């Protein structure tokens, strides 16, 4: 039964419309630039329902069978992944560093969604490469964001690398949303 699945995903996406638009702003301001035109800042557009993080022409084609399987999974056993994406989007919507309230909210939402290990296990069955990779990156960003909160220094990413978890989380979650939209529309 497809209709309930689609309605659930669309419902969640509409609820996150504000967050997605915030993501566009953040991406435009904070994303690193690429040398092949794939940087979000040069390709992002905003509409009332979708956010384009990457020019779809630069992404692998959507395989219909994989899309169907993934959408069905996200509507069922993998639903916690949407909660994770939701949590990261809310935390990164402003593009600013997290304050205490945002940290607490993020922690609670992620804990409800599942541990990092459990979420990794939920990501594995995703067939579509872009969806799986963007979920992995969202999960990694969530880890970095929580670590930042736990370090007590909300202004400096706690990760060992130079990547800004806020920016990365916003981009990764945005790409996931874009891909889901693409899959729902059949490529």
């Amino acid at each position, binding site marked *: 039964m497809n209709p309930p699945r689609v309605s659930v995903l669309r419902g969640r996406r509409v609820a996150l419309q504000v967050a997605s638009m915030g993501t566009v702003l953040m991406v435009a301001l904070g994303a*690193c630039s690429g040398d092949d035109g794939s940087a979000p800042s040069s390709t992002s557009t905003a509409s009332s329902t979708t956010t384009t993080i*990457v020019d779809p022409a630069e992404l692998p084609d959507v395989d219909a069978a994989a899309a169907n399987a993934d959408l069905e999974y996200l509507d069922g056993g993998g639903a916690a992944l949407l909660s994770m994406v939701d949590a990261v989007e809310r935390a990164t919507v402003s593009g600013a560093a997290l304050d205490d309230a945002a940290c607490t909210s993020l922690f609670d939402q992620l804990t409800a969604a599942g541990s990092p290990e459990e979420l990794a296990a939920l*990501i594995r069955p995703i067939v579509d490469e872009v969806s799986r990779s963007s979920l992995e990156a969202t999960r990694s960003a969530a880890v970095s964001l929580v670590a930042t909160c736990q370090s007590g220094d909300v202004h400096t990413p*706690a990760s060992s*690398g*130079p990547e800004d978890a806020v920016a990365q989380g916003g981009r990764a979650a945005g790409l996931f949303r874009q891909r889901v939209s693409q899959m729902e529309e059949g490529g």
Partner: protein
Amino acid sequence: MTLRAVGAITAVLLALLVSAAPAGAQDQPITWWALGDSYSSGEGISGTERPSGGKPECARASGHNTGAKAWAVLARETLAEPRISSWAFTPCTGAISSDVEGQMNEAAAASAHASADIVTLSMGGNDILFGDVVRSCIDLEVSWSSISPGCNVGEATLRRRIEMLVGATPAEEGQYTGITLPTLYDDIAARVRSGGAVVVLGYPQIIEEVSRWDGWRRNVIANCEGVQSYDVGMLRSVAGYLNEQIAFAVQAADRRWSPKGIRFYWRDIASGVYETGDDPAQRHALCTEDPWLNGTSVGVTSGDWRYQRSFHPMQVGHRATGTWLSNWMRTDIGLDQMARPQELTSPSWDQLKNAAIPEMCTHPPTTLVDGKDVSLTPFQGYFELLRTLPNGQPGLVQGVPSDAGPLTAVVVSCNAGGVGWPDQVMFFKGQGEYHAHIDLYEGVDWEAAGMYAPGRNGIEGVWVRGAELEVYTTAELYNDMACCPSSAALLRMRAEGDGVRITSLEEDIGD
């Protein structure tokens, strides 16, 4: 019956006679032990079997009752060498260097041979806990309460562990638990027959360079299979260093064991198989267009998922490795010599020790007595066949192939007064008659090989490999004093007609 028909029947009969001739029938079976860790066992291939009684994490793509075949299985199949009739496949997921002794014992039982002619393996990655490090990189914490993003071990620590692996740094508790590679290689060599070969494979890079990722991955999500882009450089650098240090250890083992007729070979699958060039079609790490390794999701949909399969080569990678390796093995590891029958018909020491020999070392022709020229006074120097070399290795080798039949080669030590000369090698045939000799100083173009001369009395080993005699000797470089050669060389020579031809000379740098 026509003449043509008679001719045809005769030809068929002749063909049958030729095919029934004992060519190869006397060959010794070659024994191959495939050992190693998960990169040898085929952990990344769906459908691996678990050996009974083995560790729970042990998985093997042996090809038994399954299509899952690791590179060693495929290399053997591709070689299609009937003389490799004895075989054991005992690598294991999670194996460290100190597990290899057990793998060899299992292989000995499985192959019904106490020693091997060919040993292949990859080993070292688990000793430095590389798998645990990669696992840490993808943040699989069980709670959000205590989080440490990215790899939990830095490059400096991993490099130090690698130095412990190769014995360059003492092992530190909690950092390293295995034995060192030099010890491992010596343990293996002790169970390899003379003329045999130990082939050590390295590891592939598991993740493509970030700069080569697709734009959406590089610029937007900065993540490959859960590994953050900022950790990729470190992982690649460590893998490169691991391969480099294993290569050095293999080359050192080759120097130790070549004089005893056992060769060690390093085969770099990172550059030889998985990343052979800059073209995207030549690159097969994760996050390339055509990855030959698993990400973290392999086997999920088929129900064959286990975490250990992650970051390991899948079947296509093993097939490419097996083909690449077999092409090299066919020509480079001396299968003919391994299969050579033990019974030799060339002259024994007793047959040649009193041979008549021509002028050598400025000494006139003479007849030897127990291998020595007893006619010489101390002022005239000396001449002696060395049945045993000063280092205890054999100086006499039987069964050197030639078109005059099997020969016996003996190292000669001689001079014309004063210090000893560079060694010579003398060949005997039949019932002990002199056949030919070669002066390693006069008869070899050392300059062309970037060296000056062989060391005085410098031969440290002689053995037969294939159709050739191989001689391992110390070697002088241009700035060396004559007393003190600083290098070594491997000479290959072939007995042809009435003489001996040098076929190659190379400074010994291992593989």
